[in-house]
């Protein structure tokens, strides 16, 4: 239970932290830490505008997206604290729940009959397909390191091991931060603040949602990002020792993920769109590399 509440809290704070980081780094004072909450409250108090092209599916998509994100969040443990639901193989379910929310959003976008949204949907589908192996090799590496296939038991068993394993853990966390950037639609893959429909990926698919629907989608994407960030934080928290990964450490690390995302957004330009595929495949390749690295280490070869 504590883990689920933590993910929800992280979802609330993370966007604020990212915004504040960007503001400070660009020399602004920045908006209130919880400005985005007020924005969503405003959205939820509005009505809705639907395009006559859209059908029932379009209206159901926000609910499905949010429900899939929240269900995925149920599986995420906060460091060593167990998740609300956990079972052997829950990593796979986690990945597929995120895929469900992505697929729902894509279908909703295609229902509007807009060429911009089709463009965004096409990109999102491709990027989603290319990042999937990265996510699964991340899981595979964790399974190889700990001998477990559930987040909760993995993070329970993941402890400070040899220096090699610390390096691998840091590498894994790095990979997952990249996954957060890709799945969350952040720079350098996608720019959440762009105003040009032609270059949007994630944002363009939400263009025709307004009011309550947009609010639900926004909350859903916060929870998705927070779940991934919590997994990243849990991974790297293990460096501080099995017992040392206290709640406070994990909190600080999730905040650190927010700061990193904000920093990247302040100093990097987004990729050219046709470079994105390469960028994402590189992340997946890196995950494969981490997997093989751990495998070679586990073989205990004596390389002279």
């Amino acid at each position: 239970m504590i883990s689920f509440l933590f993910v929800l809290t992280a979802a609330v704070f993370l966007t604020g932290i990212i915004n504040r980081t960007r503001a400070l780094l660009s020399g602004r004072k920045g908006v209130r830490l919880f400005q985005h909450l007020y924005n969503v409250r405003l959205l939820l108090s509005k009505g809705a505008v639907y395009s006559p092209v859209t059908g029932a599916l379009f209206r159901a998509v926000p609910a499905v997206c949010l429900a899939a994100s929240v269900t995925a969040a149920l599986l995420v443990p906060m460091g060593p604290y167990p998740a609300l639901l956990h079972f052997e193989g829950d990593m796979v379910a986690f990945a597929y729940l995120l895929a469900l929310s992505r697929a729902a959003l894509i279908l909703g976008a295609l229902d509007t009959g807009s060429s911009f949204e089709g463009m965004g949907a096409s990109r999102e589908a491709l990027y989603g397909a290319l990042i999937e192996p990265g996510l699964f090799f991340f899981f595979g590496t964790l399974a190889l390191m700990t001998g477990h296939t559930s987040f909760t038991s993995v993070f329970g068993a993941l402890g400070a091991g040899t220096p090699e394993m610390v390096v691998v853990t840091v590498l894994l966390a790095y990979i997952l931060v990249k996954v957060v950037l890709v799945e969350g639609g952040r720079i350098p893959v996608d720019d959440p603040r762009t105003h040009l429909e032609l270059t949007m990926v994630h944002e363009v698919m939400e263009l025709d949602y307004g009011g309550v629907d947009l609010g639900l989608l926004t909350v859903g994407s916060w929870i998705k990002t927070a779940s991934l960030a919590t997994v990243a934080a849990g991974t790297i928290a293990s460096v501080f020792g099995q017992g040392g990964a206290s709640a406070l450490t994990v909190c600080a690390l999730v905040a650190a993920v927010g700061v990193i995302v904000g920093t990247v957004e302040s100093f990097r330009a987004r990729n050219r769109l046709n470079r994105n595929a390469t960028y994402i495949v590189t992340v997946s390749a890196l995950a494969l590399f981490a997997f093989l690295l751990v495998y070679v280490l586990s073989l205990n070869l004596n390389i002279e």
Partner: protein
Amino acid sequence: MLIVLAVLSLAVFAVPPRYKYWFTLLVVAAGAAVSTALALSAWGASAGEIVFESGYSPLFLFDRPVMDGLSAVFVIVASVVAVSVTVYAKDYLAAYRESKSPAQMSLHYAALSLLYFSMVFVLTYRGGFAFLFSWELMTLSSFLLVLFEGEKREVRRAAINYLVLMHVGFVFLLTGFVLGSGGGDAAGFDALRNYFATHDPVPLFLLFFAGFGMKAGLFPLHVWLPEAHPAAPAHVSALMSGVMLKMGVYGVMRVLTYVEAGELYTIGLIVLFAGVVTALWGIVFAALQNDLKRLLACSSMENVGLIFTGLGAGMVGRATGNDVLALLGTGGALLHAVNHAFFKSVLFLNAGSVYLKTHTRNLDELGGLSKRMPVTSLLFLVGTLAICALPPFNGFVSEFLIYAGFFRSVAAGTDVLLAAVGIATLSLVGGLVVLVFTKAYGIGFLGMPRSRRAAEAKEAGNWMIGAQVLPLAGILLIGLVPAFVSSRLTGVVSSVYSLPEMPAGTDGLAHSLAMISVLAAVLIGMAGGIYVWKRRLLRGRTVAEFPTWGCGFTAPDARMQYTAESYAEGLQRLSSPLTGRSAGETGVSKDEPFAGTVPNSTGRWRDRVDSLVSGRWVFLVRKLNARLGRFQTGRVNHYVLHAVVFLAAVFLLTLLGIL
């Protein structure tokens, strides 16, 4: 009993035209009821299999049909899908009543029920002759079914292509059985046990693998598949893709039961890599298709690939004593075969309804169907989500099992690299399936109608919709209560492949499956709850209508929508080394001021293997024929000369002791 029914299905020729359909439905339903009952009893039988004395007939050279767990699973699936497609055929074929003569209809009906019965025979006969007889009957009846619209040139081409390749496959099987009998007269599956015990199993297995793989659509033997499925009527495609491909899978699974575990390592690797390549090839080509049924056919290839990936991994697991991987890989493969039969038949049937109502299968001429054909669209959506392996539907459960096998063996540190290959394939394919099927559903059913035919579409008939109740029930049952079915299937696998029922390390499996049910319930409950809550929030507030945002452009038009081609463009760029474009428009030239005056690109993505396998050979054979044609002068004296030369040659060869 079943043989009687099978023979009876030929009697449809004698039935008056009005009752032909009902007669066929009756025969198929009776057959399905009988064989399902037998399958269920075999499942419950203590010996694990039952032998039927009644099938002991001169027709099949006194071979007794045997039903064990493996046959039973496939028989039940075949029966469910067969009944469902036969019910569906009523409205679908009604559209052809004018253009087809009663004899043609009878032929179609007879072939339909024969296809079903031959599949049941394939699944139950183990003797070489009876098996091959049923196998050939299956090929011929499906050939006749594909040929239904034989007046179209491409249908004839696809059907002949199919027939030829199936017979190449048949030769492989025949050779396999003859070699496997070791010269004895009892050719058949049971003779293989002896052969495999005394010989190196790999070469003979490869023969069977090629023969069965031809039917299953394994790379590079798949070239018939994307041609034959779109050419056949919808209910036939559903039966062929949903069930008949699985006969190939069944054949491989059956042959593998006779190989001793120790010999399986190489074989498992071969199966695994064939599966991996098939899955990736299939899904990349599915993404490039703009023809709805062709897309579904390519995706069948991908699913067969996944089944073989699981099966191959399971066999390697058996060889290395990794029981967890063996049970979960093989069990997942079997469950995926069942799942694919259910969701692919739903998808094909609805694609058929769309074709019937719009007369096009081109995604770029569809669109907007979710409003015009709401129930058909909803059913297609369920199939879409199931094939994308998204919870809470059945595809997720079988992929979960296969993943669980891979992840557990990674966690246990055994067969790690192999599992890594499996995980990479499954995850990449899993991601691409979402792309392919959001394309199929999003472009084909959502948005604005892209042509007048789509705009005027009407909802499909009640029979066409009602027919899908059975497979739909299967999708929901397996998706929501996975423990119910998958524990039975893993039971079948462990008895057929003599694996421990519950190898150490699978103790959490039942718990995992139960938790998947919980997860599905939470997901559905939450989505429903949020939706209802949203509706209540919106009550009393303004819910306005406003055109889709067009970047300030105020006259949006169906032609401005994203097309099927452009949707897959990103993937097409990445996969361009594998694909080549056939002749057709390649785009708008720079000198053309108005893009609208140039017709949309009409080229089609070619399968390089297809052009390699069929294109080159056909070319060579034609060349050879042209050379040989010179001898065919039409003059009697030349022919007499040929005969004399032939005789002289035979005489000389005998004399020299060569012949």
